[in-house]
């Protein structure tokens, strides 16, 4: 594929691409959506095209550029996630319920399948999602809840889990809803607050997420997933 054909393939309005990927970010998660976008662009315009699109989209979807720079295909990502989730699953097996703040389908698909005896509650990171469709993709031990219900689900047999994006030293980015979910009141009612680290370091400020300073203070355990 020559440069011209790559350029013509990528010659799209970033707004239209962001519009197309937005429902996926909402229902599958930002990282999972970035993997899908990367895979699609890679198949059409290879690595060069993905780099060009990442630059175009950096104002709308900066996490995509971070994924492209990590050069991680969805298949590779799934293999890595599968392997690195094992200790997390072992840790979670001891609990009766897990409250997950935010959706990342590449992680939750595996987690829900491997923890059939654990009730998993998901708090969406996006306000408007097709709840029926989201739930139809998960086994019956998964339930969607609102952030207001988080306190009532606490207890010694409950664990809170969320995603930590692009951590650099002790600073990172989280879904804005995670901020509410890891507040001091909530932290006191859960026996563990687990952070799943997705990507390390960043070259672009993830403007669509919330910065979290002193990350380690908020989580009792952190696992590097990707």
């Amino acid at each position, binding site marked *: 594929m020559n440069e011209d054909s790559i350029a013509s393939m990528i010659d799209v309005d970033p707004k*239209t691409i962001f*519009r197309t990927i937005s429902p*996926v970010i909402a229902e599958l998660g930002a990282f999972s959506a970035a993997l*899908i976008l990367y895979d*699609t662009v890679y198949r059409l315009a290879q690595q060069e095209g993905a780099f060009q699109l990442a630059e175009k989209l950096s104002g709308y979807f900066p996490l995509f550029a971070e994924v492209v720079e990590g050069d991680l295909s969805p298949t590779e990502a799934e293999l890595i996630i599968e392997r690195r989730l094992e200790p997390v699953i072992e840790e979670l097996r001891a609990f009766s319920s897990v409250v997950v703040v935010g959706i990342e389908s590449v992680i939750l698909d595996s987690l829900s399948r491997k923890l059939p005896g654990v009730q998993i509650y998901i708090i969406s990171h996006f306000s408007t999602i097709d709840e029926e469709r989201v739930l*139809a993709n998960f086994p019956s031990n998964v339930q969607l809840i609102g952030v207001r219900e988080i306190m009532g689900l606490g207890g010694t047999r409950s664990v809170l889990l969320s995603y930590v994006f692009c951590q650099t030293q002790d600073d990172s980015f989280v879904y804005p809803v995670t901020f509410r979910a890891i507040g001091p009141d909530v932290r006191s009612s859960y026996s563990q607050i687990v952070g799943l680290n997705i990507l390390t370091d960043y070259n672009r400020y993830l403007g669509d997420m919330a910065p979290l300073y002193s990350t380690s203070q908020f989580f009792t355990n952190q696992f590097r997933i990707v």
Partner: protein
Amino acid sequence: MIAAILIIVMIATLIIQALIPSRKMLVIFSGATVSITIAAILGNQSITSIYNGVPWDVLVILLGLGIFSSLFARSRLFSSLAVWCSRASQGKYLLVLIMFSSIMFILSCTLNNLTALLLVLPVLLSILKALGATQGFIALCFSLLIVACNLGGAATPIGDFPAILLMGTGSISFLRYLVLAFPMCVLIFGILVALAVVYYRKKERVDASVLERSLALASMEKLYRNFTIDKTILYPGIGVFCLTFALWIIANRIGLSPGVICFLGVGLLMVIKNEEAEDIIRHEIDFESILFLTALFFMVSCMANSGVLDLIAGLMFEHFTDTKMLVCVLMICCGISTAIFSAGPSMATMLPIAQQIISKGNVPGDIVYVGLALSVCAGSSFLLTAATAGPLAQSIVEKSGLITREERKAKFDFMTFLPFGIFAYVIIQIWGLIFVLVRI
């Protein structure tokens, strides 16, 4: 005099319920109460004769088909079909248009089109969101979908209320209706799709880029990644439905009424899938429309017993000596009244008049009945408010927050639909008239 009062009550009720849809149940029940009181006290009609005028079989069939539709919906059949359509369309607008309207036509042939719309539209909206469709395409696509629902409903005797009424009242046999109406509806649907394609090619032409299309398809694939059909519900459902369908075909030979067959089918299904059936009956059955139609049938029964409908038929005979012309006038009146009052009231009122015309004019009843069903279909496609599918589609599009390629909120309302509606009405009505004129 009594007959005139009953007509006035009926027309006033229909107009008020059309003007205040939020109070339509109150209006129709008030109308029924007034009609029954007038008929019983002033017209000396017995309550039993009014009850006997209600086609209970029709209500049973509507109830039974509602249960079947809900059960199929639970099996995720509709959504899976819609996802398959998105995949097969390859993200091309034209294929999206053809495939989704075809799937709506097929589903509406046998199942409740509201349930089908409720489950197919979210998938269609997702693919349109991902592809970034233009306002023109959105209007064309949803309009064609509504018309496909109406045509599918008219294609079989169990597709929609007018056809169910014809079969339930014994006006026409299941098989005869199917043989006459199905090919006509397929033909008209084919013509409308072809015209929509020509219109799209001339007016729209915009298509999503390769990257957008590939991304839209990949997104759909992931959004529905573990979406599977529940075979434990689907297989027994299909089995019982096919059995019921077969019994309807041979209903005349085995001497069972369509209502009884429906009872048998639904009963069997409830025994097999008792847990789901219990839940469906408690929470999902649309009792509102069944009650609405019951009240309407009471009013029509009062009018029929008073002899006013015979009188109207007699007057029509006086004005139109040519029977063919008379049938055509009846069909056009039926189409227009459907556009204003919707299919239920229109067909329930026109059917007794049609029966009189058929018996006095010595014309083949089955042809006239199918002609009437096509006219009702034309009327339902005229205005967005004429059929329940229209307002439902409008509200789903509004709530979806669909944004057009022009970066505006997508619009699908009365005025957006009107040009397509007029066009569809004319096409369906003309073909209905041709069908009747050629066959009589």
